[in-house]
């Protein structure tokens, strides 16, 4: 196994800068690793070896010619399959988009390409990003590299697992209710949901427009900051994109300064309902932050108890409308109804949607259609929007008392595949701590804070900051990471069991 695949993106950047390794070598090392282990992990839905090597070679040529290139030029990346990529199949994990090849790039993909970052391929996910285990992919589940019998989280299980399995140094995720942060937590990786509007949504196949946000998935806080800087910033193609510059996230990650910072523990997101080992690792992390000069306070966000309920009204409502476009008329799957000789367009639409959508997607479309119906709108969608305002008000009040808020990212460590498939509500509970940030549009990070005593699986530590103060996530995250690495004698992923390389590169 090449050491290049265990190297952080920041280190790869300096290796490339000094010429110690070429972009082609680094990209090839990751493609070899994918070939060797991905039949076990199934992090990728599509691998673009040719395209990745071609763009790596271009970067090498530019570097050799002495041209100015981006600091991450030549560092390869995996992209969640919900992000459209020109010329590369994009399915969002759904059968209804099987074989669809987009004619355009998402803005963030354009930015990756402009930075010279080779795209290794597209990662697996719950269908249309709906789920917390990646088991709702139409193309089969992804497995957690820490324990192949367990889930890698979701919806972005593919991106998180690719990092933990050393198949990619960087990945892109999207987070509507926790789909970046929860997979990061259960795979011992880092995931950031930026402030809503901080990264363009243009080219993200929408699940819930008012909640969706793309962000970096990495193995270190600094790597996340570097990637955040590449993909962030205003995009005129997205009306909800923020106007200002990207916050100074790289600087914050490098300085790791938390002295005098007030760290607020959210009362409602601790204690009962969180696995013992999760609580233990969370508490010991707090001690590290105090050690680093921060001050810990407790804050209450009373409306957070309604967050899950509000989320499961707002999100499905938007889903029911956003997914209406998948109708077999212009692209994707087309299924003709059985037993009808001369079907109408409506009958083809219905047959295609019946065959092309999985149960979880159908469940949410039905929920949302109902919630928006005349006569129910005020009671469901209307009330949920009011709860959203209350949650935003809770955040505003809490950020008066604390500079950042913290909680465990997920209530449990990775659960076994299949354990929650028949119990949607228990699956939804995985996002109890991550959803409030989406409802209020504030940024959040999850970073590994150790292994739970009872099962030896990774635990995630979540930090939330006020909107447009993303740099605080990186300052606090980096400070905690440094002290944890010091205590552990290296990154947590050094302790991941080795995967059997089934194919020799």
């Amino acid at each position: 196994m090449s050491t290049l695949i265990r190297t952080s993106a920041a280190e790869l950047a300096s290796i490339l800068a000094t010429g110690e390794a070429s972009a082609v070598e680094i990209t090839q090392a990751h493609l070899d690793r994918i070939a060797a282990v991905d039949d076990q992990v199934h992090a990728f839905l599509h691998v673009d070896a040719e395209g990745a090597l071609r763009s790596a070679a271009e970067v090498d040529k530019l570097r050799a010619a002495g041209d100015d290139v981006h600091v991450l030029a030549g560092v390869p990346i995996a992209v969640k399959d919900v992000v459209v990529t020109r010329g590369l199949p994009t399915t969002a994990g759904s059968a209804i988009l099987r074989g669809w090849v987009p004619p355009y790039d998402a803005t963030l993909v354009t930015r990756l390409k402009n930075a010279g970052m080779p795209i290794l391929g597209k990662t697996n996910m719950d269908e249309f990003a709906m789920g917390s285990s990646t088991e709702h992919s139409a193309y089969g589940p992804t497995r957690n590299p820490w324990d192949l019998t367990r889930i890698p989280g979701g919806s972005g299980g593919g991106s998180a697992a690719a990092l933990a399995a050393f198949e990619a140094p960087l990945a892109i995720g999207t987070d509507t209710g926790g789909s970046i942060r929860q997979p990061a937590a259960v795979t011992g990786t880092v995931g950031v949901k930026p402030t809503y509007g901080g990264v363009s949504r243009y080219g993200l196949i929408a699940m819930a427009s008012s909640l969706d946000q793309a962000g970096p998935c990495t193995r270190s806080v600094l790597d996340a900051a570097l990637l955040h800087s590449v993909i962030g910033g205003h995009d005129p193609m997205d009306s909800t994109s923020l106007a200002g510059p990207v916050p100074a996230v790289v600087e914050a990650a490098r300085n790791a300064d938390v002295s005098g910072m007030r760290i607020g523990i959210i009362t409602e997101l601790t204690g009962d309902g969180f696995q013992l080992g999760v609580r233990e690792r969370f508490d010991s992390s707090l001690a590290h932050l105090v050690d680093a000069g921060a001050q810990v306070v407790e804050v209450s966000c009373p409306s957070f108890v309604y967050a899950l309920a509000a989320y499961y009204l707002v999100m499905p409502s938007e889903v029911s409308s956003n997914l209406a476009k998948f109708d077999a008329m212009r692209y994707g799957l087309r299924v003709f109804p059985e037993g009808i000789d001369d079907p109408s367009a409506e009958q083809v639409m219905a047959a295609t949607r019946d065959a092309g959508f999985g149960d979880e997607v159908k469940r949410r479309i039905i929920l949302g259609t109902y919630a928006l119906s005349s006569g129910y709108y005020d009671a469901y969608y209307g009330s949920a929007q009011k709860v959203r305002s209350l949650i935003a008000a809770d955040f505003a009040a809490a950020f008066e008392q604390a500079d950042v808020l913290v909680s465990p990212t997920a209530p449990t460590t990775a659960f076994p595949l299949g354990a929650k498939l028949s119990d949607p509500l228990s699956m939804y509970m995985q996002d109890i701590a991550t959803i409030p940030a989406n409802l209020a549009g504030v940024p959040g990070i999850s970073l590994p804070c150790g292994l739970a005593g009872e099962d030896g699986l990774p635990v995630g530590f979540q930090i939330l900051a006020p909107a447009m103060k993303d740099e605080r996530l990186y300052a606090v995250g980096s400070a905690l990471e440094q002290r944890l690495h010091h205590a552990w004698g290296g990154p947590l992923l050094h302790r991941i069991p080795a995967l059997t390389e089934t194919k020799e590169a």
Partner: protein
Amino acid sequence: MTQVSTGEALMAYDEVVAAYDPVMGLEVHVELGTATKMFCGCATTFGADPNTQVCPVCLGLPGALPVVNAIGIESAIRIGLALNCEIASWCRFARKNYFYPDMPKNFQTSQYDEPIAFNGHLDVELEDGSTFRVDIERAHMEEDTGKSLHVGGATGRIHGATHSLVDYNRAGIPLIEIVTKPIVGAGERAPEVARAYVATLRDLVKALGVSDVKMEQGSMRCDVNLSLMPKGVAEFGTRSETKNVNSLRSVERSVRYEMCRHGAILAAGGAVTQETRHWHEDTGITTAGRVKSDAEDYRYFPEPDLVPVAPAPEWVEELRASLPEPPAQRRKRLQTAYGFSDLEMRDVLNAGLLDLIEESVAAGATPAGARKWWSGEIARRANAAGQDVSSYAVGLGVGPALVVELEGLVTGGRLNDAMARQVWEGVLDGEGSPTQVADARGLQLNRDSGALEAAVDEVIAANPDVAAKIREGKVQAVGALIGQVMKAMKGQADAAAARSLILERLTQ
């Protein structure tokens, strides 16, 4: 679906208006003339090849997002202001959800309970000179759908077609939907009021320059809601909604037809079905479309992909201050200023000449001269070419300055009227400016008074009978002698001078 039946019972119009009061609601869609679509940068050129003016946004491809066209919002506000509406200080777009193959996203981005403009009115002038006020409920922004072409059936409608083609060029073109409050109290004048309202609205939107409002090209479309209530009853009856009534004449006829149809149903003790009706331009009747229940549920909710529209009050005031004069007011002002008779004014308006005349007068022409030159030969030629006069004139490179020049040649004494007509024809034939044409053709009044006197004497001598009549007081006979003088002088005589000289010789 559609059944083209013809035999629906109708009540005589006089009987309808004697027994019932009509209530109308008019919904007019105006396609804005913006260069690009409402939510993307695609062109909006009419008549382009199918599906050539499309992109990921207006095709509703996965991942694409809308961005609002600022000119679209400005146009909507200007229409709202011109309709005396209040302008929302904050409003949102909303999604109207329903499935249809020509709607790429299967929702239409529209506005629901927060329209950009609301509570206005439009005063329309009726043929008897009276004014009828139509109250405006709202004007809101939305996007057009694609266009379905149903192939293989006899009627071009979906019923009986073997397949359908969809052109998405129209998808995403900005529309403003203008909805009236219920129009009550029009009585027997309801069809005229409907027509006058749509005509006035068309002129207003055209004057704003925000749309070409060509009903025949679909850039202005009208839906007519109509119900009847028995005289003395204040409660509205059940309405029908006649879709896509696409000419002024059809608006009037369809209201009249529906009044007669409703009247027959009600008089027979029946109940009007709440439904969509199709208007048939050729036969002048409506036929039943889909039954429209109040339960139709579009599941409107605020469009999360767009930010709210919050026009700054100062900007709205700027737009208000820059509104053009309302067309009706302008017409009255100019008619008075130009001294045109009602008949002359009607001809000028029908030929669409008012702008050209106004520009020519501003450039120095007399109103009568401007009217004469713009409504003569050039109007005939434009008509033959199937164009309106102003675009025909633009095509020729003929503008107000040439009219001023031509008139100057007449008032300056170089040309008489007949010569000026020849010169104008030369100008329209592309021979150059009026002066150049007159020079090239050697047109010049003969100012030699000796020659004129000689010609006059000669003609009087040669026509003793006519001369005798004039001496007896039949002054109108002078025309015959002027013609002869003109002929003798090869058309270069000043007709007025010839006339006074002849009269001088014969009556003194």
